[in-house]
């Protein structure tokens, strides 16, 4: 009998997923905190998102609850829309200051 996707997923123990997702998430955080290039920061944010997605899929499979996977699809669709907006903002920033270094965007201060 052909194994189902949950079965395939479950061949790897759950803690592995958690550790992997956490590692991805921390990589994302570190990227956001340390890099000054807007596009890299943006990519790091995506990494963090996908870390969460992975975790959701893993839990969904282990609990045999499809709701988690539905969530993931929503997050992907929204993230796609968000990417287009985010990239458009970065393009506009570049047009205005000929750079995408967020260190230069400090004029809005108290």
């Amino acid at each position, binding site marked *: 009998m052909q194994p189902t996707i949950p079965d395939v997923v479950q061949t790897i123990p759950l803690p592995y997923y958690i550790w992997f997702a956490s590692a991805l998430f921390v990589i994302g955080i570190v990227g*956001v905190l340390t890099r000054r290039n807007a596009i890299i920061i943006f990519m790091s944010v995506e990494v963090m998102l996908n870390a969460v997605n992975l975790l959701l899929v893993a839990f969904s499979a282990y609990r045999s609850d499809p709701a988690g996977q539905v969530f993931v699809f929503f997050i992907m669709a929204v993230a796609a829309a968000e990417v287009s907006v985010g990239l458009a903002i970065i393009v506009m920033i570049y047009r205005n200051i000929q750079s995408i270094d*967020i260190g230069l965007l*400090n004029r809005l*201060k*108290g």
Partner: protein
Amino acid sequence: MSLLLLIPLLPLIGFLINGIGFRKIPKTLVGLIGAGTVVASFACVLFLFLNFDGQPRVEKVYDWITVGNLNLSFSFQLDQLSLLFMLIITGVGSLIHLYSIGYMKHDEGFGKFFAFLNLFIFFMLLLVMGSNYVILFIGWEGVGLCSYLLIGFWNKNANYGDAARKAFIMNRIGDLGYLLAVFLILTNFGSVEFTDVFRQAAGLKAGNSTILWITLLLFVGAMGKSAQIPLYTWLPDAMAGPTPVSALIHAATMVTAGIYMIVRSNLLYTLAPVTLEVVGWIGLATALLGASIGLFQNDIKKILAYSTVSQLGYMFMGLGVAAYTPAAFHVMTHAFFKALLFLGAGSVIHAMSNEQDIRNMGGLRKALPITFLTFLIGTIAIAGIPPFAGFFSKDEILLHVFEHNKLMWGIGVFTSMLTSFYMFRLLFLVFFGNFRGTHEQQHHLHESPLTMTLPLMALALLSAIGGFFNVPEVLGGGAKLANFLAPLFAAAQNVRPEAFAMAELSHSTELALMIGSVAVAMIGLAAAYVIFISRKTVPVGEGQEHGLQKVIYHKYYVDELYDAVFVRPVNALSVFFHQVIDFLLIDLLVEGVGKFVKGLSKEFRLAQTGATGFYIFAMVIGIAALLAWSLRGLILG
């Protein structure tokens, strides 16, 4: 539409037309509308008067306020008293309107002036026609407003504005008394309709304390409107308005309101002997005070103003001895001769190019023959020399006062002598002797146009024959007015007959009293003649008065007294509240809150560095902290 409704409505329409369109309507039309509506209203009153069957009736226009047990209707009362006052108001009012057409011809506010005059007549008619105390109060407040508007009519002069405010404020003090009285009436009788109130009051005993308070408070209202001590000071200052306004205020409207109100409430007053006593003495004091101040004034209008104060005092003295008819009679004759005197004075001022000081006049009888003749008639009438109007009414009041209290009578007669003296002083100084004004003024002297002299002649005629409406029995008259008004006092006479009881004076005593008062008037006349014609005395210039004369010339320093006792303390209190309470207390609190928030935000705004990296860092730290907090059980085991 009922004719009764039309009477106040016509002046109101005149007011609306002139008030809204005074910039566009040509002057001739303004005068026509202004005077026409009042004349038409007079015609309506006359028609009603001639068809009056002696039965008072109340005509309801609509239900005004209906709340719970309170039911106020907007209704008009037609009876002997309202008819008499309506005749005076619209009759004398028409003549004054007519006169104003000539007098105000060159004024830029012509249309506005007529609008205000019409409004004045409207409110005064409302006052005397209303069938309850509340409608009366609407008119009462309305005339106060109109007097303010008209006294301050030449509003570019700050002094005139002050005079207008003074009149308004003095009236407000009185109005408060009136209002309290109305509340008392409402709580005690459950109604403010005259008929209801009087029917219930008729069952009460004389000397009832509620009635005492009601009547006293009503009298406070009357003090304000009718310029009695201590609220009289606004009236002389009201001279700031154009002369026809003075005539209107002093003769046809406004000051007679207090008398009307008391005569209307005669039942209540009859039930309160104490109040009557107060009214009488205050009236007497006002009469004496007004007359004595009039002796030394030099402004033609001021003299007349104090004479009004004094004559009003007479009327209240009459009311105080329950001589309601003579008081109403004196209102009527006074309306004739005082309107005449004021309009005559206006004619003189007009001819003298706005000069009002009698020291600069003299010898005007040749230049202004009609004004002189009519003024002479007015003077004789007010001095109380028969057979002119003032004699009959004043003498009747004095007769009743003699019955009541001999001392009061004595002072009254003395006042009458003063009246005669200062009026003839005025007449002699203005119309006799040599001209004392500038050459330019002399050149300019001219008799007034027909629109001004015609009302003078009509009023002179009325002043001459007005007394014959109520000739006492002893002189072979029928006392027509007294019989006409008698039904008004029937109820009061029922509850307390002794207030009206006249010990049968023998005709000879009555005649002797009359001869006495005439003789006294003659003495005043003779004294004035000797001083101002034979000796050609001219009043001394400003600041040269001595002793008593100086005190009287400065009106007994009453204005200064009020200033010191009321105005300055209030001002000081205002300054205190402004500087201490407002600046120190309230500002400290309000500004303190603002300053605190401002200072705090000044520190906090530094957190907004503008560096995106810092914001993200803060966010991550924040999320981590939240996470740690929510998972604290897991971490700490």
